[in-house]
């Protein structure tokens, strides 16, 4: 197990270098000179242009810029935002809990609905239920996130008035951010109704963000379950006269869930991408919205650091999934 863990950790180094190169190159491939964008219609004199280029370090040769960037990262310096003039890491740490909170509730939503739905579909394979469910999953999977988000707002907030339109909590609640997780901070504050308000604000964005993972998890659970149900040991269990509940719930599920866990892990990456759109629609102050703003402003250091930090998180999650997988299924370790 330790050897397996070390192997995985060693693999992180080249991956990390690769990601830094991609993050670094990506923002430079984007068209647009940040200095000119800052100047806008106002124009900029050649001397001032030179000065700004120098200030941002863009007058250096590319390789030099890259090594300065890499060197900075190892010192925990991810650069300074061009627009806010603040260290990028500070903003990231301030905003990241909001994204984690949203993703957490989205994944809870996706898993708690997706796994049971997939199991039932597998057990009643070919029934109208199965067909409806798989059809719905396909729709959910193909629905553009921004469109779904707006649709939910118009229906549930606008027409029915059940949920708030956007934001993280009703504005009359006001307490200091301790953990950055609104639900936890609301509980700590002890203010009446604050926690419920925070939960109500989570519903629509979590559903929006969780829809694609929900569809994927439901389909994956169904197919994994079908595969397991055809295996010999399940037939044996059935033959021994175990109740269907025991066969499915105890014997089949345990093995069927292994690939599903991998899928859930992979969905974390998908969710990071989805969070960018979801957060923008719901005014959710997380790193997704932060990245979108940064891209539109050509705020190189923010885009670069954001890409890198998100990639690191996805890598960390994948590592955890690999380890979990290894624990559940020892065969994997020796492959």
């Amino acid at each position, binding site marked *: 197990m330790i050897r397996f863990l070390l192997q995985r950790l060693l693999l992180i180094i080249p991956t990390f270098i690769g990601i830094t190169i991609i993050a670094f190159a990506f923002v430079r491939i984007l068209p647009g000179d940040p200095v000119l964008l800052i100047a806008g219609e106002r124009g900029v004199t050649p001397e001032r242009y030179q000065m700004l280029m120098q200030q941002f370090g863009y007058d250096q040769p590319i390789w030099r810029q890259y090594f300065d960037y890499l060197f900075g990262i190892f010192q925990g310096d991810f650069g300074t935002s061009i627009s806010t003039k603040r260290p990028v890491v500070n903003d990231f740490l301030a905003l990241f809990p909001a994204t984690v909170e949203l993703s957490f509730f989205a994944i809870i939503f996706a898993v708690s609905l997706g796994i049971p739905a997939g199991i039932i579909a597998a057990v009643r394979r070919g029934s109208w239920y199965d067909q409806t469910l798989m059809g719905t999953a396909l729709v959910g999977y193909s629905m553009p996130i921004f469109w779904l988000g707006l649709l939910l707002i118009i229906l549930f*907030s606008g027409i029915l008035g059940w949920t708030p339109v956007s934001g993280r909590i009703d504005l009359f609640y006001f307490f200091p951010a301790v953990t950055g997780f609104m639900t936890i901070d609301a509980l700590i504050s002890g203010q009446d109704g604050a926690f419920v308000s925070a939960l109500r604000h989570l519903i629509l964005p979590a559903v929006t963000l969780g829809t694609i993972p929900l569809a994927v998890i439901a389909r994956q659970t169904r197919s994994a379950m079908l595969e397991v149900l055809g295996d010999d040991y399940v037939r044996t269990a059935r033959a021994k006269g175990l109740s269907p509940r025991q066969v499915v719930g105890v014997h089949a599920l345990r093995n069927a869930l292994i690939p599903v866990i991998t899928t859930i892990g992979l969905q974390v990456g998908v969710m990071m991408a989805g969070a960018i759109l979801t957060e923008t629609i719901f005014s959710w102050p997380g790193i997704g919205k932060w990245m979108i703003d940064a891209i539109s402003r050509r705020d190189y250091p923010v885009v670069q650091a954001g890409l890198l930090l998100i990639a690191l998180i996805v890598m960390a999650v994948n590592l955890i999934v690999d380890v979990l997988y290894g624990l559940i299924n020892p065969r994997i370790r020796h492959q």
Partner: protein
Amino acid sequence: MAFKKGLLTATALVAFTAGAAQAQTLVYCSEGSPEGFDPAPYTAGTTFDASSRALYNRLVQFTPGTTQTEPGLAESWDVSEDGLEYTFHLRPGVKFHSTDYFTPTRDLNADDVIFSFERQWQEDHPWYAYSPGITWEYFNSMSMGDLISSIEKVDDLTVKFVLNRPEAPFVANMAMDFASILSAEYAAQLEEAGTLDQLNQQPIGTGPFEFVNYQQDAVIRYAANQDYWEDVPEIENLVFAITVDPAVRAQRLQAGECQVMPYPNPADLPTLQNDPNLTVMEQEGLNVGYLAYNTQQEPFDNPEVRRALNMAIDKQAIIDAVFEGSGSIAKNPIPPSMWGYNDDIEDYEYDPEAARQLLADAGVEDLSMKVWAMPVSRPYNPDARRMAELIQADFSEVGVDVEIVSMEWAEYLAQSSAVDRDGAVLLGWTGDNGDPDNFLAVLLGCDAVGSANRAQWCNEEFEALIQEAKTTTDQEERAELYRQAQVIFKDQAPWATIAHSVVFMPMTNEVQGYVMDPKGGHSFEDVTLAE
């Protein structure tokens, strides 16, 4: 203390939403996050709304709803005969905000004014680079560094600015956001604590509201400044609920989650206008969208040709199709809400017949040209591509073949500035300080050829007028000079002036006393909420 204050605010807010409207709270669904709370390093209106307009004052201020200036923190000012010395007399007894992080021991004085400017000007000033990467965009782009020779403290309540050359727009410049007055005493306190960055995160000003708290990218809270030197705002709590998506802002407004929102989607306007609970204010923005010919290239160096092309453009069709009614035809290079606007000017009438004739008279046949279309949507031009297509169709009516070119925005800005660039460029401008000089000299002056003057147009007569206006201090005299300059502009036609956009501000009916700012700012000091 911060927490206690927060609780007080929270209690007040709960009381308000419970219907016992003791404390008035206004929620404004703003369109984006401020870059910081020190206005001087930034150029975005979103930042100014959250900083300079809520928290600070300037020596001079704009009369609400106009581009005229009036006394602000300076009660009055004298200008020397030669126009080189401006002496500002400060209002006595102006208090800086007293918050849990700063308690002022003295009123506003000359030191605060000197601090606020010198930090942007002198490279060896301890505050010149107080935050990594900080730059003074506006101060520099207005060439204030070259303009100011010295800033002197005459006495506690008198400050003298000595200039290197006469500059009539100087008073208007002093009303701009970058000229906000910060507290030198607060700065000294931060220097002592070694936390210079705080200036940008925990601001102290003299303005109508004081800063309470900012949750990044989510909510900014302000409380009324109870010691405000003008009328204390009736709004006790001001909240900016940052909501980036315009469709969501509209939903929030309709759901009562906020009372005012800026920048609605044109598509949402009919719904908002038909909602009986809402009022949609509208005003022409302080901007102009134009098509600039390159007057240094054949055949556009011939004014006849430019006039002919101007007559070929059906502007009304453009207003209808591109602005969907949220714009008006422009005949001058400055918007009508600005002083000095010459309303006697007559626009070129849309007349393809006459245009074709004029082109023939000028000996232009089989002309093919480029029209540049910006890749981004701007206030003065929501869809340049569509506009270019309409112009293409209009020009083909008079036998001119148009190729539309477009490129990435930064590239567009750079290449369209080049003197040897071909064809005609679509672009526009939004005013900074309400002074005609900010349009006429910046966009059409000889110094701006090769940069902001996209027509590459340098006309002696026009230049003489705007230079004279720059050095004249009497506003009525200046207005007359600008009116004459507009006559020359119209006759020489370096641009086809196309449109001024209309800006919409939807709000709930309970919002009273909101005045739209032609310069596009949003301030709430005079707003009240009806029961």
